[in-house]
């Protein structure tokens, strides 16, 4: 599983980081970074939950 982040859409709400801090991190400019290029299996559910809460649909889970 991968997560693609649309940097142009990201507004820095930070809900992904709140839900899944081991997958998503907001950098100093509050732009999201995805910690893993390929999401480890044990973090897949968290990664999905984090993508799900993005208010502006900037995160897409790709299987």
């Amino acid at each position, binding site marked *: 599983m991968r997560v693609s982040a649309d940097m142009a859409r990201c*507004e*820095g*709400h*930070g*809900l992904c980081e*709140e*839900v899944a801090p081991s997958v998503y991190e907001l950098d100093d*400019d*509050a732009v999201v970074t995805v910690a893993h290029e390929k999401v480890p299996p044990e973090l897949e559910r968290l990664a999905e*939950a984090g993508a*799900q*809460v993005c*208010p*502006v*649909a900037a995160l897409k889970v790709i299987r």
Partner: protein
Amino acid sequence: MTRASHLVASDVDLFSHALLEDPHPVLRELRDLGGAVYMRRHDFYVLTRYEDVRAAVRDWRTFTSARGTGLVPELNAGQIGGVLASDPPEHDSLRAVLSEQVSPRAIHKLRGDIGRQAAELVDAVVPLGTFDAITQLAQRLPVQVVADLIGLPEEGRENLIPGADAAFAAFGPLTPELQERLPYLVAFLEWIEQVGTRDQLAPGSWGAAVLDAVDEGRLPADKAFPLMRAFLVAGMDTTVNGIGSMLRIFAERPDVWEEVRSNPKLAGAAFEETLRLESPVQGFFRETTRDVEIDGTTVPAGSRVCLHFGSANRDERHFVDPNRFDLHRGALDHLAFGNGVHGCAGQGLARLEARAIVSALAERVTTFELAGSPVRHYNPVIRGLQELPIAVTTRARTKGVRS
């Protein structure tokens, strides 16, 4: 083999006064009736289940906003082409004008300032002992904060609450109540055109940034006032009612208030759970661009479709025990702010305002109780209160009573 399409219909008037006092039993019936229900009154389809509403709000190609996000074509006409009533790419270029200013990363810098304003407002009501938490608290902070951010003069701000209320009422059916409110909308629009000018708007404000975008050719001149209006309207009744409903829950659930008071870090959780349970924007409309099948019902192209956020947020298919306020639910996936390209741009600001009010109260108030019956405010798409009588005691006073 394709399934035979069937029409699930209802005669309920989703916008009647009586229903909106307590819409939840009827919304539950509609959720059980079908994923898409045709409403004979007012001629539209309603989506009430979480998964359907979420999918629709994220699929702007099928569920377009470009033909208006209200029920009635005559009222949609004035909205079309604005940031709410448009699709990408037009929508994105309008939203981009203020996206840096309203983004949480910019809003974060306002924290101290908004915290101070909330503290001042709370300091003004707490010594009274009893007060109306809607008009004296919940309405005050958003008006002050948003009007300051847009850069509007003090004079005339009394137009904001009734103007925004009328603007939201115009998303619903054309009723005598709406007709009565239209003068407030007109007064509000006239005021914005008067004060939304370079010489009146505060330098560096969001309003000034809109005019900068016009000067720099990023925004057509005729879109400037509608954009300022959109942000003003969106920042009023939504936040006001979110805060108002949260304060009502505090007053009715001493256990919740006590927990939040002793740990104000839970303010954010309290606000999110309130938004889920009492979604200030109950529903907005879209129009289908093609025939869509939902739960065996074909919604024909060109139908008005209500995306019922309030119902989706209480869908038992998605939330366990959905009618219960649970401070520890952690349901950040609620749809109170919508989602996707039209997901609320000001949600970071709303969260900041709500948290500021809670922190200010938690620092000063011991008991927080109803001092009378809350009175619901009627608006076809907005859920909230018009009166919330509250009695508070402070630490000093509680001690005095007990000693």
